[in-house]
């Protein structure tokens, strides 16, 4: 059972700003980390499109992400 939920926004602005790279980086996480995370997508998170791409990890919204930032967030906050 995965305890952590990661929601990535795939709305047009987030997609253009690199949501696909975020998804790919999650899929490439090492197996032990990956299986603790339930990956979801959304059409919009929190209406903060000007700070795309946006993701929500365990209920907290993070903006202006890139794969490195997301990796750090996951490692620091994973349960």
């Amino acid at each position, binding site marked *: 059972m995965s305890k952590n939920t990661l929601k990535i926004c795939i709305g047009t602005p987030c997609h253009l700003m690199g949501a696909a790279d975020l998804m790919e980086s999650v899929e490439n996480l090492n197996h032990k980390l990956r299986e603790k995370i339930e990956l*979801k997508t959304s059409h919009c998170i929190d209406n903060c*499109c000007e700070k795309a791409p946006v993701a929500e990890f365990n209920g907290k919204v993070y903006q202006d992400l890139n794969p490195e930032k997301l990796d750090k967030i996951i490692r620091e906050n994973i349960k």
Partner: protein
Amino acid sequence: MDLVFEEFYRSIPKGGEEVCGDNVEIIKKNKKTIVVLSDGLGSGIKANILSTLTSKIASGLLEKELPLKEILSTILATLPVCEVRGIAYATLAFLIIDQKHQLRLIEIDSPSAFLFRNNQVQKLNYREFELEGKKIREANFKFQRSDQLFLVSDGVTHAGIGGLLNFGLGWDGVAKEIERTVRRNQADLKYNINKLVKVFNTFYGDQAGDDFTIIGMKYRKKRKVNIWSGPPLKAEDDSLLAEKISEAEGKKIICGGTTAQIAARELNKKLEVGLKYYDKDIPPTSQMEGFDLLTEGLLTLNRVLSLLKKYKPGQIPAAGKDGASRFTRLLLESDSVRFLVGRAVNESHQSLNLPINLGIRSQIISQIAEQLRRIKKKVEIEWF
């Protein structure tokens, strides 16, 4: 019951060639359909030019309803002469079918057509005569609801030469393959054409010894598709639009993430957002009960537009699994298309500073509608 005449074709170039020496032209006008197939002498670009000229001239003149003699003499006078062989030559087959289902088929040096009727393939009854020094076969008959007609270039009847067979399949061999394939699946013409191309290619050992083309034709019921894209200007129209799309007849598409969220809210249905990227440039599609397809908005619409611009009537649409390819297929498979377009400006897109032609939904949809009209689809747009 409303019927439409549908036709699909595939052309395969000779192994090692970039272009196919066969050419197909399909014209729909005043409820008439004109299909022209021409096979140029030899293969490669020279053959392609010969067959393109022949079929373009023929279809253009047929559209203006000129007599056969005129068409033939124009073609013979126009074709460039091959340097090597000293002749100018392309075969020609064309048919015209009117709204009363009466079909007229003319063949000049191309293999006889294959008529699939009552579960078997039969040869047509031809009348033969000579015109401008050419032997011409003509068939006139009433095309029935469950009939299917196949036209091929001689690359098909020769399938197997240089491959699995010594002398090729011949007319009877091809008839047997068509019979076998169509019997199994009478409804899906596109699938059958793809399957037959695979069969003939296999006889050639996957290296076609000549250009080959197969065209299939049949009647089918009319299909409708409805598309809702974009939130309406007035928020109180949300429920009206949701109701309109959910009660519409035919297939249903929602295009746009925000639009999908509105639909889910108004119809009280669960929206499942997809994860899978089939194409990196096109965001994943979503799912909702009662809808055939839910896609992202602007990027998908732009890709749909560029796919439609490249489309030539009768071609089998691209087989991609991404949202835009699926969207395009649904449009091409339908005969009437109804757009419900919301014109609210999406605030989030303003921050992106998109190029102006990419950013305006109403413009893209108007262009898509224009492309659909070009290939004779009935298009309706309602603005909100």
